[in-house]
């Protein structure tokens, strides 16, 4: 891992397709068995009592509460926004979620729904989830979302270009989107399930960070394999090493497939013991999830009252 090299050493990496390829292919390989074993072993940490209470509140505050359906309506998005601001109407000490995450055409509705709160509006863009369209269409998609008030943009990379080895094309697209974002923070989605190998995920992570990603994000939630402890651990190693080398801190967002408090806490343990406590903040770590929030709320009620309430004691939106 190039952790001790001076920060300026990365400036010429993106000079051409071949320098970029040499750099990405020069990153240390990932041993799949070892990576998964490490993720599994951190999954055995036992988080109880005060630590659990801390972790649940932290996890709630890190949720990007998401609806990304063809059937999304203003009513659905408004309900989601209300839930993000007051996740548990019976307990106002419950933290707000970090953001709501919607399609670009729902950004206006979402902004109204969370107005006056700290909840951000994130919008997927760039022809989410496939990303298979022309760059100017993707950029228009981004600009529309930003113009409507999106605080954050979740873009997808061109996996086809990545798998074809055209790294500079992927890089150029990310930088173009970053520019179109203006002041909005950019999350770059790799769709790790389609990149398939851990070596690819490490390369994509560095590629995204070099191109100016504010967050690197596992997946869209629309494919068979989404966030896993192992791919998230790998991306946490990448942001850790990137900061060590460049001084720039980048966030991580696992998305899709994280449904229980137990799972979420395992991810927080990964953050804590890999990237470190600097990432234990919703500015630097998010969960892309929808059903997770209700499980976190039920666990929170259980810790507070000592008994399980059940699904009718949290809101269904």
């Amino acid at each position: 891992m190039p952790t001790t090299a001076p920060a300026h050493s990365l400036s010429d990496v993106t000079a051409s397709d071949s320098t970029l390829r040499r750099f990405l292919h020069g990153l240390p390989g990932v041993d799949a068995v070892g990576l998964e074993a490490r993720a599994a072993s951190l999954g055995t940490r036992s988080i109880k009592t005060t630590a659990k209470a801390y972790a649940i509140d932290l996890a709630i505050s890190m949720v990007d509460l998401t609806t990304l359906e063809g059937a999304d309506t203003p009513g659905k998005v408004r309900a989601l926004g209300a839930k993000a601001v007051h996740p548990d109407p019976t307990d106002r000490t419950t933290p707000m979620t970090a953001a709501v995450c919607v399609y670009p055409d729902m950004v206006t509705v979402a902004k109204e729904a969370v107005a006056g709160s700290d909840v951000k509006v994130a919008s997927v863009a760039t022809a989410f989830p496939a990303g298979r369209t022309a760059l100017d269409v993707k950029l228009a998609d981004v600009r529309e979302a930003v113009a409507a008030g999106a605080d954050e943009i979740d873009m997808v990379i061109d996996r086809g270009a990545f798998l074809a080895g055209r790294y500079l094309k992927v890089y150029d697209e990310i930088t173009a989107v970053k520019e179109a974002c203006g002041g909005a923070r950019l999350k770059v989605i790799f769709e790790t399930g389609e990149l398939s190998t851990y070596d690819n995920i490490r390369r994509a992570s560095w590629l995204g960070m070099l191109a100016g990603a504010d967050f690197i994000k596992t997946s869209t939630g629309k494919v068979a394999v989404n966030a896993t402890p192992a791919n998230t651990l790998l991306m946490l190693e990448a942001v850790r090493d990137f900061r060590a080398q460049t001084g720039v801190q980048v966030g991580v967002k696992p998305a899709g497939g994280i449904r229980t408090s137990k799972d979420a806490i395992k991810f927080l343990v990964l953050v804590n013991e890999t990237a470190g406590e600097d990432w234990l903040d919703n500015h630097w770590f998010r969960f892309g999830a929808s059903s997770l929030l209700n499980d976190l709320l039920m666990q929170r009620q259980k810790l507070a009252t000592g008994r399980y309430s059940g699904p009718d004691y949290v809101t269904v939106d």
Partner: protein
Amino acid sequence: MASVFEYAPAPESRSIVDIAPSYGLFIDGEFTEAADGKVFKTVSPSTEEVLSEVAQAGAEDVDRAVKAARKAFEKWSALPGSERAKYLFRIARIIQERSRELAVLETLDNGKPIKETRDADLPLVAAHFFYYAGWADKLDHAGFGASPRPLGVAGQVIPWNFPLLMLAWKIAPALATGNTVVLKPAETTPLSALFFADICRQAGLPKGVVNILPGYGDTGAALVAHPDVNKVAFTGSTAVGKEIARTVAGTRKKLTLELGGKGANIVFDDAPVDQAVEGIVTGIFFNQGQVCCAGSRLLVQESIQDELLDSLKRRVATLRLGDPLDKNTDIGAINSAEQLARITALADQGEAEGAERWSPACELPSSGYWFAPTLFTNVTQAHAIARDEIFGPVLSVLTFRTPEEAVAKANNTQYGLSAGIWTEKGSRILAVANKLRAGVVWSNTFNKFDPTSPFGGYKESGFGREGGRHGLEAYLDV
């Protein structure tokens, strides 16, 4: 260790295990006092609390136990293999059923973290009995000729670092092949062997097939020297192993020795770095480094030394040392005051000889036997810490320039038990592995164990193999 996300204590409950105030010797299916009435105390290394008082076997008890084993041998060896297998399968299942209890017990008596006894020791113990149970009725097909015969009475002496696992390594193949055993557990960790005696009774194992004699070195010496023992198996220090070899020389006793090690973990510049760091940590800090096959020498290619050591130190700083019963503890207690003194002395010698010592900020508990994870850099082949087995959480870091130099340095030791190779290049793994004089060579992993895989040493690490098909040979008259 992060301060904002402080893990609350998560202790495994002690109430699952019921430790009696005293235990006898297990001879001929009964618990009995020592003939001379001697007892010794076993303490919990993490707190120095006395756990129990255990009968200490003397020469007379050894004789009684060997006689019981001899008597049981006739019927036990005559049983069809499929019948012996039933007992072994039963024992394996009882171990699984009682695994939580045994894990807590082992952690209390040994000092190692519950995470390890729960996730490594106990699953491997059960797996070992299952594996050799499977062999019991297939010995004709093991490659040792038709109807290979057992040896008779096996005298077995085991160490304190993996008390129940070493017992399984010894007893499972012995019983599967039709031998009977007299086993001496280590004086600092006798309890799990005595619980195993109870499991033998629970499984209905015929009397005398397994006999357990707690005691010190003199008990082991008497067992090894007993004229009616046909087979001696020992795991422990090279010094004691040599003594046993001298005792056994000139007799017809068959001998296997599994002794010390100074394993080299070789990290090439094209290694998967994050996983290599994990492997280095596992290699030297698993069971507080009290592992004969520990990767206690790190051989790192000089060109990546600085970045690898940065990563390694950052990782070592996250290790959680403390109450072994806490489910989040990574580093437990050293097994005894004696072992702690040995580790301390060798580490001090390393410092005195000019190697650079590093440990993370790490608060040690006030009672019990503790040693912080320690790295030594600027170590050369000439340093004692590069040559002597420390048997503790102390890693000596050396560098190399070429694969040839890595192999030469890795082999330049009196031992030859284990080695590790870290590279993404498959051809290099095969080329280097072929040149290493070590009984087990791991590639891109370390300290992985499986009952199907033979384990044993070159040179002063011993001879004979335990585990796998090869492990049967030590208990057969072939």
